[in-house]
């Protein structure tokens, strides 16, 4: 009875008044709820991005806030693209990204495949394998620095044990040839479990009946791997490669902690160069331009890659 009365009152109320009575519309309420997040996003992501784009065309230096800011047009971009040291840093980054992804994918997939066999104690081993990924990069960087220490580090002694080379000659962080590999080893050790997890999810998503059908057709294990396992897990592997590729393209912490970009500039990846220009040399405009170039490069490459990933998924 009461409900019917309320219903009648509501129907009799003119629309503008009803809106006022009801307060905020659903859409308005939705905007109200998401507006803090949008404002935060605008403040800490979108505004700095546009600000950096603006600064990249200027000679602004953050350590000289009182100096007049001059518009340089594309001069910063021209200088970066013509700077041989920048290209060397980009090559170093590419070398680092290529090898870490290759090793992490191969080892990660192999581990996932082994774990997927569901042998006795596989859950325990999965947890153990995941431990490096759970550690802080700062901790990992510091303890690997000690491990690599030529006079007291365990790594040098292990290498010496297997090769007969004196431990003091195993200078992983000081040697120009070895230093890039020292970082690749640590990054692979730390992030292979992550690739393994994604691959494991891919392997577990393959329906069992496909293997059963293959068994009926007397397909060998090798044939099953190449015709079923690998193609069906490929989108997951590609996803892992995408994630690791983006992460490693902007890798900073591990390189900074292990070698600081040295010896010389041997391990100076793009992010280290960027940090030096921005926060040591205080060339804010120049480093903003470099950051924009890196952003466009990563964004462009990631887009091409995602398109390829979608094609693979559609197959």
């Amino acid at each position: 009875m009461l409900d019917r009365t309320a219903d009648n009152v509501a129907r009799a109320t003119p629309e503008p008044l009803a809106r006022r009575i009801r307060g905020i519309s659903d859409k308005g309420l939705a905007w109200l709820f998401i507006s803090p997040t949008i404002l935060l996003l605008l403040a800490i992501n979108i505004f700095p991005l546009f600000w950096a784009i603006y600064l990249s065309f200027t000679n602004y230096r953050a350590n000289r806030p009182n100096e007049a800011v001059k518009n340089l047009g594309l001069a910063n971009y021209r200088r970066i693209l013509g700077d041989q040291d920048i290209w060397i840093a980009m090559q170093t980054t590419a070398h680092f990204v290529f090898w870490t992804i290759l090793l992490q994918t191969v080892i990660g997939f192999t581990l996932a495949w082994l774990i997927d066999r569901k042998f006795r104690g596989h859950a325990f081993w999965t947890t153990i394998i995941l431990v490096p990924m759970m550690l802080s990069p700062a901790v990992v960087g510091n303890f690997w620095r000690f491990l690599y220490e030529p006079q007291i580090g365990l790594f040098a002694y292990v290498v010496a044990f297997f090769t007969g080379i004196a431990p003091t000659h195993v200078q992983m962080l000081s040697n120009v040839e070895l230093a890039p590999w020292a970082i690749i080893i640590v990054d692979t050790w730390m992030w292979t479990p992550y690739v393994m997890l994604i691959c494991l999810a891919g392997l577990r998503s393959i329906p069992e009946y496909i293997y059963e059908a293959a068994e009926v057709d007397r397909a060998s294990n090798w044939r099953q791997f190449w015709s079923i396992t690998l193609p069906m897990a490929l989108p997951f592997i590609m996803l892992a490669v995408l994630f690791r590729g983006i992460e490693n393209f902007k890798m900073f912490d591990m390189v900074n902690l292990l070698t600081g970009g040295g010896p010389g500039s041997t391990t100076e990846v793009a992010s280290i160069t960027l940090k030096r220009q921005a926060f040591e040399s205080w060339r804010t405009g120049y480093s903003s331009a470099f950051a924009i170039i890196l952003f466009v490069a990563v964004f462009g490459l990631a887009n091409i890659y995602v398109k390829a990933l979608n094609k693979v998924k559609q197959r």
Partner: protein
Amino acid sequence: MKSTWKLALGLASAITASTAVSNAAHAEDLTLCWAAWDPANALVELSKDFTKQTGIGMKFEFVPWTNYADRFLNELNSHGKLCDLIIGDSQWIGGAAENGHYVKLNDFFDKEKISMDDFVPATVVGYSEWPKNTPNYWALPAMGDVVGWTYRKDWFSRPELQKEFKEKYGWELGPPKTYDQLLQIAEFFQKRQIDGKTVYGASIYTERGSEGITMGVTNVLYDFGFDYQNPNKAYDMQGFVNSPEAAKGLEFYKKLYDCCTPPGSSNVYMGESADAFKSGQVALHMNFAFTWPGLYKDEKVGGDKIGFFTNPAGPKGHFAQLGGQGISVVSYSDKQEAALKYIKWFANKDVQAKWWSLGGYSCLNAVVNDPKFPASQPYASTFLESMAIVKDFWAEPSYATLLQAMQKRVHDYVVADKGTAQEALDSLVKDWTQVFQDDGKM
């Protein structure tokens, strides 16, 4: 009940009053910013006298050397009020003066009759003046410092080693006077077995990230003929920075690094270098003088086992890299008056004498020229000799950019074996020219 209310009211008043009093006291507290190292501890001790005399409390913000420049330059650039007083590195002076971070002290010095003539001239130029060699003062010389060397006196005095050394090189084993001698000693000790332990020749600066390798290599470069610019034409660097003689100096530093440093010495600065010496690994050790009091007190390598010597002379001169800092009042501080009181107190002769006795390196002539000074500590005379031959890196507002360029070029050549010494210095001239062009100075 009434008495309970009275008691509560009384307590509340007491708490309010005590908070107000304590706030009033804290309002006058000064914060002094510096690097976290041994002299900073001595300054804490010394500053207790200031608090006793003036009632002004002292708080300290000490940051490890690796973050010192980043932390405090960020603070100054953001016009922060954390530091009332700052002991900033000598190379900051140009930027700090031109960007208005430091209070200019000329009027204050005139009013308080503090004369810069009373301080060691090199420290006044290095720590206080901007532009250099003009009477514009932004700091009071606070902590004199210079690169010098320590050696293992106990190893040098072993008769069997002395004999072997003399037979091999034809001169008595002792503190080197030239770079050839330094290299010979380092070679002699490299990978030698002493007391059943393998030891190495020398620990030298090779750090890449901040300023390490530059602070090391410049000692040698100056002595071989390197100069920052044409003495008659500012910012003219061609043929001065990259002269063939300077290239020879750089080659020498690489030779010393390649032949005679402990394994894994590719990123060594003050801490690592001192550790190599303290752990008994090296016969020779390059470091700033501030490390000497601590090393002399060290049970394992100090006392009779340690000796000190100035940077050797080279074919074109005899110099040493200046370290050290001046104390400045931060222009963004709300307590400038109290901060100036501290500077006045710190400039006092008795305070400076105590500063030296506690482990700080005074720059006051009255202290260092005292006839008793050379004998006051085993390293005092070496410090004095070294301070007489100092030369410093650029102190331009763009010093950080100039420093990074040198770090890169030198480290690439010395540690990473990239190119030749001449190419490294030629590239350095290009880098520095670009920096000065960007600054509109060329």
